[in-house]
């Protein structure tokens, strides 16, 4: 009988299901990055003047910046000149209706289990499909439009809603925020845009599905979500990539803005190709995600299930400006084989009685290494602010690592932060117990891991919880009781 470790190794050795690539003609920029490439992207995207300038500005800032090295991940130096910064399926214009989408692209999304259709399975979800650098489709636009909700690709928003984009773009993550954010600002090609007007509760989940297809391309998408006063929106993000021997760079930026009494729930199931068992290939995922709770009693929740990528560098954060605003971060990160993840969150308490909650579940197996890095800062004015952090790690086998690096800075003496951390293992006792009850070994591991992550999984919208549970290796057929 195999040990918990062996089971997880078998599990890990299973082929990445989404690793196929699609032969489709692409319009690609030459490799490399310079002002001409940035201008080329601007031209391809038909940028207005201000945006073209903004990109160049960001590019010049980027040139002066250093790639961060403080995170606990190791990778050979990235040659930023060896990457294509623009790749788009060769289509003359964005299809006017969903029926006009290239059949190759359509069948790829079918294979990925997210058909481009306004149909039953995804009836409760509107999807923006981003293929390499561009958005290829967005469903349910008309229905959302009736409520005044704008859900479209950011390229469209730049042209159709310039006042909103100009007002908010870079207002949470400035162009020069960090090395990867600056790179993104210079070369971002697409992403999703959401605006929910005052008092509107978005009746369906909004979702973006990212797919990297071309070789040697970076994906630099930018998402901007604005929830106006008293509104609510739940947004989902999913991603996969073909299996390739080279590493691919993904440097996204996500900005969320919640006004008074607004709530944004942002969920991610990240399943980029993680590389093979020896650590060859896989996505480098360097992402800046930040939400500003600008308004009073506003709320932003980040929920992430991270199972993919060779390297993850990601700290979805909340800036709690409005009094009584709330920030939450629920995370499951699974690293296996040679995967490395340095992930966590930042909760910056500025307003009075702001509250934050952090629940991080890290599962490490194989030779993988994982770090939770979290900052909780209570500014001077954060009267009565509260934070609770819970960081649990599960180790499977003895070659993996888990590290917890909490930074707590409190500048107001009425503010309080609590931090709890645990480390556990899947024991052979637990596995045997499940198996003696008829549950096959692999299902037993999935069951135990899902149990470990339950608090976080419960935060996911139904549409995603299923996929996420499957990702952790379980199919849940309606819970009992």
């Amino acid at each position: 009988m195999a040990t918990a470790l062996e089971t997880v190794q078998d599990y890990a050795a299973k082929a990445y299901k989404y690793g196929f690539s699609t032969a489709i003609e692409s319009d690609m920029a030459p490799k490399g990055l310079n002002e001409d490439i940035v201008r080329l992207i601007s031209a391809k995207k038909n940028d207005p003047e201000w945006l073209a300038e903004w990109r160049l500005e960001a590019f010049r800032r980027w040139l002066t910046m250093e790639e961060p090295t403080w995170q606990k991940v190791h990778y050979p130096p990235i040659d930023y000149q060896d990457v294509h910064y623009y790749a788009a399926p060769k289509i003359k214009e964005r299809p006017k209706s969903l029926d006009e989408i290239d059949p190759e692209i359509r069948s790829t999304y079918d294979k990925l289990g997210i058909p481009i259709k306004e149909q039953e399975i995804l009836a409760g979800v509107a999807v923006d499909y981003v293929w390499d650098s561009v958005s290829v489709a967005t469903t349910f636009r008309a229905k959302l439009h009736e409520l005044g909700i704008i859900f479209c690709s950011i390229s469209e928003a730049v042209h159709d809603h310039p006042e909103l984009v100009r007002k908010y773009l870079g207002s949470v993550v400035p162009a020069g925020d960090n090395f990867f954010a600056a790179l993104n600002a210079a070369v971002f090609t697409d992403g999703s845009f959401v605006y929910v007007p005052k008092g509107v509760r978005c009746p369906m989940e909004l979702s973006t599905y990212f797919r990297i297809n071309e070789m040697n391309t970076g994906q630099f998408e930018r998402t901007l979500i604005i929830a106006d006063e008293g509104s609510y929106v739940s947004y989902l993000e999913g991603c996969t990539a073909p299996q390739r021997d080279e590493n691919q760079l993904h440097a996204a930026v996500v900005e969320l803005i919640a006004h008074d009494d607004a709530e944004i729930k942002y969920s991610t199931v990240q399943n980029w190709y993680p590389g093979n068992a020896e650590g060859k290939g896989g996505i480098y995922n360097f992402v800046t995600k930040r939400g500003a709770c600008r308004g009073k009693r506003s709320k932003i929740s980040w929920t992430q299930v991270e199972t993919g990528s060779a390297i993850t560098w990601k700290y979805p954060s909340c800036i709690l400006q409005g009094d009584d605003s709330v920030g939450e971060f629920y995370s499951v990160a699974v690293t296996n084989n040679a995967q490395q993840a340095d992930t966590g969150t930042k909760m910056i308490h500025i307003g009075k009685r702001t509250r934050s909650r952090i629940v991080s579940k890290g599962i490490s197996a194989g030779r993988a290494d994982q770090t939770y890095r979290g900052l909780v800062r209570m500014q001077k004015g954060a009267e009565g602010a509260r934070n609770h952090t819970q960081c649990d790690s599960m180790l499977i086998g003895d070659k993996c690592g888990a590290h917890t690096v909490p930074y707590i800075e409190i500048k107001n003496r009425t503010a309080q932060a609590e931090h709890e951390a645990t480390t556990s293992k899947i024991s052979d006792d637990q596995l045997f117990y499940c198996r003696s009850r008829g549950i096959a070994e692999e299902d037993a591991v999935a069951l135990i891991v899902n149990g470990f992550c339950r608090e976080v999984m419960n935060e996911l919208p139904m549409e995603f919880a299923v996929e996420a549970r499957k990702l952790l290796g379980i199919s849940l057929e309606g819970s009992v009781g």
Partner: protein
Amino acid sequence: MLKITDLHVAVDGGSKPVLKGLTLEVKPGEVHAIMGPNGSGKSTLSYVLAGRDGYAVTGGSVRFQDADLLELEPEERAAAGIFLAMQYPVEIPGVANNYFLRQSLNALRRARGEPEVSAAEFIKKLKAVAERVGVDPELLKRDVNAGFSGGEKKRNEILQMVMLEPKLCVLDETDSGLDIDALKTVADGVNSLRSPDRGMIVITHYQRLLDYIVPDFVHILADGRIRKTGGKELALALEEQGYEHLLGEAA
């Protein structure tokens, strides 16, 4: 239904022999009690039957129905109808007790080519069984064994056993840690499963349990073998005289 012949088992990477030629046959409908001093290998026997890793069979055979039991994985043994009520049930944080049990039941049913039970059917049956074996409905929603008292854990094992309707029940010291009332409810649960086509092995330290679950045979396990076999009166004799005396006589 179960035929153990000259079984040799070693632990500690095979370096420490525990069972040294154990022979035992259980026929359908029979209840066998196994008693023996601490460390005599009672739990080892139960684990070998259930297929736990780390218990190396160095000789002998175990046949269950028509199969070579030792060839089967633990989940296959469960599907074949073996259930072990463990001496130390394990906690599984974050996994609801009722969810776990339904997963278990459906896994067994799938393995046997039977359809899965619906949520409604399952809940109905679970409620009834929980009441019968004295499991507080609250415990069904809590995480598997997490924070359960010793007695609650044991009762939960019996709940699983009654729900899963195994062919061969192996109970490892299910009575230890139970007060007399709990003992009676547990025994009722076990007795409700007694049937002409089901076999049972009841491992216990105390004669007391056998007042409620009346065995057809009592075996004394010592030095890695069944040293003495008798009817239920053997348990009473053991209680009075102790192992040393009784086994001294047998030797």
